[in-house]
């Protein structure tokens, strides 16, 4: 029987993020667990989420407030060691993705990331995850412990805050670390343009065709930029791009100025989760479409009827000029 620890961190405002609450949902489905929280306001956040936790461990000294590998991995190491857990569930945030592999190495444990499913049957635990950038799904089993399982955000529903069934005392722990890194804050590189909005229902992908010569033999970058940005603002959707379009920026070709590598969807980009996705001027090649693995309903607008989208990768392919379609669509959205 595994001794399970749910290892969370607080967000900048001291709350638990959505990914943390999704992790709690998974843990609750497995039965009793210990809860460990690191970061500013950890003990208050732990109280809001203890649910069926049997033990609560927290680290909340000032140096653990900022997301940083040295402090976060030290906190995770102390929390896991103190709990004596054999199975550790943690949300796949950027913060834990950076720190938990380091903690696993120091604990002589093991780690698996991007878990989208977990099955426990007696002493056997199996983690479901993707290989080859969402092209192959597989199941991983391990005998070495402690085993840290980093849960992919969006794979489970988020738990609501639950009141404690019994009062559990919070144990405050300390970890000695003098960080050499200062976190200066966050910036957005996109000039007034959102990249991936996790809560948007629609992903809009602009492919390289937007920057190619059109019917009149000319390139219409300004028109393309206007149509794309107008649609993104009106539809309040996520904006993604294919690698080829993003790469053109580095190759000195005509580019849409608001698209950066952060917009890139696919094998070397993101794999966002949205209910619907609309691809325009994009050929739907496999390296890009692997980033669409978690987009349920897919439509594409492209002039090539034999593009990748036509070969079972989209539900509907409109063989049409995306410049015209988006102009009409923007007018309808007014």
């Amino acid at each position, binding site marked *: 029987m595994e001794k399970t620890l749910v290892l969370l961190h607080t967000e900048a405002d001291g709350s638990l993020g959505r990914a943390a609450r999704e992790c709690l949902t998974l843990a609750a489905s497995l039965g009793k667990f210990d809860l460990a929280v690191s970061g500013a306001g950890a003990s208050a956040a732990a109280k809001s989420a203890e649910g069926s936790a049997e033990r609560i461990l927290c680290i909340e000294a000032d140096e653990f407030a900022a997301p940083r590998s*040295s402090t976060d*991995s030290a906190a995770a190491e102390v929390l896991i060691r103190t709990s004596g857990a054999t199975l550790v569930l943690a949300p796949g945030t950027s913060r834990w993705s950076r720190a938990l592999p*380091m903690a*696993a190495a120091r604990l002589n444990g093991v780690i698996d990331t991007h878990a989208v499913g977990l099955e426990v049957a007696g002493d056997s635990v199996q983690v479901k995850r993707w290989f*080859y950038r969402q092209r192959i799904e597989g199941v991983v089993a391990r005998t070495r412990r402690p085993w840290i399982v980093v849960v992919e955000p969006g794979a489970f529903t988020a738990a609501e805050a639950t009141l404690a069934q019994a009062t559990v005392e919070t144990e405050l722990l300390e970890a000695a670390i003098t960080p050499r890194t200062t976190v200066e804050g966050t910036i957005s590189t996109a000039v007034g343009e959102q990249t991936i909005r996790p809560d948007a229902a629609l992903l809009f992908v602009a492919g390289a065709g937007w920057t190619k010569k059109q019917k009149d033999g000319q390139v219409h970058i300004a028109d393309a930029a206007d149509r794309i940005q107008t649609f993104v603002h009106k539809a309040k959707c996520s904006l993604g791009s294919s690698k080829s379009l993003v790469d053109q920026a580095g190759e000195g070709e005509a580019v849409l100025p608001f698209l950066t*590598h952060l917009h890139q969807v696919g094998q*070397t980009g993101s794999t966002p989760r949205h209910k619907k996705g609309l691809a325009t001027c994009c050929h739907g090649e496999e390296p890009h479409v692997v980033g669409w693995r978690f987009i349920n309903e897919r439509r594409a607008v492209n002039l090539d009827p034999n593009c990748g989208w036509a070969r079972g990768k989209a*539900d509907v392919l409109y063989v049409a000029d995306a410049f015209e379609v988006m102009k009409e669509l923007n007018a309808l959205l007014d």
Partner: protein
Amino acid sequence: MPYQIIVCGGLAPDPLQTLEPVMGPAGPALKNEMMLPAVFDPWAAHALYEAAHLAKQFPGSSIRVVTLAPKAKLQQVMMTVAQKLHFELIPIDGPGGGFTDAVEVSEVLAQTISAIPGIDKSQLLLFGGWESATRGSGCVIPMVAARLGIEDCFLAVDELKIEDGALVIKERVEGGLLQVSRCAAPPAALAWATGSLPEPPNHPQTGMANMRAMMPALQRAKPAGLKGEGFSVPQASLPAQQRQTQVVKDKPAAEIARELLEWIKG
């Protein structure tokens, strides 16, 4: 100050190839894996280009590439990669597929790096890709860092600048934002995302000079000895997700727009 830059990177099947898993006695592998054309792992390649960019700014810096891959295939891939910039290859002969254990791979890489003579931690920058295009775990570089005693690790890095000896690093975090951190000095580990540098052009003379040192290194490559103890992948399959695509032709743009609007709002 010169830097000792170590880039960890493996091989990945060419992204345009169709991949199909097959189960064997030792677990899953890719169908015709040894026949599939391979490339240097995309994000690790970006790390390598960033390493070259940094080394150019700080004369005396060195670049070593530590790679765990089947050496025959590595030799083929190096024919191209070696033409892009000057570096020393430290090959480890072993399976390079996605169904190997990231933990064991990190142990082998850390042992290999520790055994490199003349490593000065005060100049050491450990580079690699954020996630490989094979296993995609995103945890090899942080684990190697921890095993080498490096406490400052940065994941999904898009930019590194040196300011008065300090490393100013931009990492991708949630919500399309970049976190800016300032690390006092090396040693540090940076797992790169795409960065901002284009692929360097091929330079045959550089390639020939590199290959003269790489061929003996490849012949001497030690076997990784991955045992996969306590790790198994009992199941691997292609996702059953083939759509019946409806191809709509000869429809006016206005009508398509109306249909799309209904779909978006529905």
